[in-house]
């Protein structure tokens, strides 16, 4: 079975991403990543870009409602994630609008943060 770990971070933790390489915050993430890889259980994962880089897409009464900002509601819970390779945010919104969850919940589009990943996994 595959399990997804969904990582919720505080604004302070997001801010610490840009700290120097030798800072304990990144060190802890590197250590954790290495232990997952060494245990042979690591499948895939990526840090996400900052929450304010999120865009939330909903379909309500057949119309697209696109909002600046991350998904923030307590009623619906995170139910999965899909990683896509696309040329622009507009293309991602296009695919998000076609996702079944857009019609009854919401789909947040947020770019991955490959530069942060590189600092953890290298």
């Amino acid at each position: 079975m595959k399990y997804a770990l969904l990582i919720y971070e505080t604004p302070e933790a997001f801010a610490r991403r840009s700290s120097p390489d030798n800072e304990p915050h990144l060190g802890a993430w590197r250590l954790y990543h290495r232990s997952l890889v060494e245990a042979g259980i690591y499948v895939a994962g990526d840090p996400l870009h900052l929450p304010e880089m999120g865009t939330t897409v909903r379909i309500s009464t057949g119309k697209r409602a696109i909002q600046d900002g991350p998904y923030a509601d307590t009623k619906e819970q995170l139910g999965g994630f899909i990683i896509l390779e696309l040329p622009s945010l507009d293309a991602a919104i296009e695919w998000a609008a076609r996702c079944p969850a857009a019609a009854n919940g919401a789909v947040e589009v947020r770019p991955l943060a490959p530069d942060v990943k590189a600092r953890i996994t290298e």
Partner: protein
Amino acid sequence: MTEPRADVHRAIEAVARHSYGRLVAYLASRTGDVAGAEDALGDALVAALTRWSNDGVPGSPEAWLLTTARNRLIDRNRHERVRERVHDGVYNAAAVELLARGDDDPTHADAFPDDRLKLLFVCAHPAIDPAMHTPLMLQAVLGLDAAAIARAFVIAPATMSQRLVRAKAKIRETGIAFEVPEADQLTERLDAVLNAVYAAFGSGWDAAAGVDATGVGLTDEAIWLARVLNERLPDEPEVRGLLALMLHSDARRAARRGADGRFIPLSEQDPSLWDAAAIAEAERELALAGAAQRPGRFQLEGAIQSVHAERARTGVTDWSAIATLYEGLVRLAPTLGARVGRAAAVAEVHAAGPALALLDDIDAHAANYQPYWAVRAHLLRRLARHDEAAAAYDRAVELATDPAVRSYLQRSRYARPR
């Protein structure tokens, strides 16, 4: 270093005013990075000051600026890739390299493509906080600085500056596409662009409310943006409707203030002071828009102003035509402004009683909307409910941002009941 000469200053100002938006749009639509394009162009303008003072103003200043800015972008991009080890992030290093190869030769300035329309759609993109659509346009397309924009929006310059930086980071980091939306999305996306342009115009029109205030709007800038849109989207009647609406409003600029700076409401304005050329242009645009047979909010609002403008010719205001147009407007776009305007028109055609009932319906949404209180006060006075009228005037005075409008409302409050 040679002292920059006056003619160099003039040349730089002229090309900046005329071409700033086109240059930013050209660069940003190729890199996906508005802030980077602005910085590069800013550097090029500084370099021009020295270089043109020494060597003279080049034959095509625009092409010189574009080439210089483009080279800055390419240099900076290569430098940053080394320094920060930029990986395959959304920030499009490959796009900058593409720019370096130059698919279209920017050395012929009149040949380089006009991408301002794409830039306008990016500024009013649904993934950008709607409150930032207008400020982004004013900065990226017109080159206004954050302090000037902050003044127009009555917020602290540092706050505006920070929000602009954040919005541009979102454009770059999330890879918002620089493209004109496909036909199926165009109407909706264009709405956001038009709303943002209209927001630049200021508090605009509450003519029927007797409060014909432009507030702190950037009217010339808004009209200029609408002209750019109209040039690039000649088949969209709502663009012409918006242009007509703003031209009609702007035509009354001189009539809106007395010699002593006193605010004069539309109904008391001297039509001979209205700008006949602007009115004629507005009427032409409305006629062209109407030919498309696709009515919309801005066309209706433009038509309402057109009826007001008729007074210059006929000497009277056709309130029943205005009331009919407001009915249509409220059905199409039930904004607070439209609903308050409809109530004011109903009062002119029928009576204050039914008009007040219309206002009561929107009571809950209008607590901070000054024209609502001004119209309400006026109607209550007509119904001889003087205490309530005074309270409503007080609320309108409190909410008025334009000092001339505020003192007009104060005068109305203490005027002898008619």
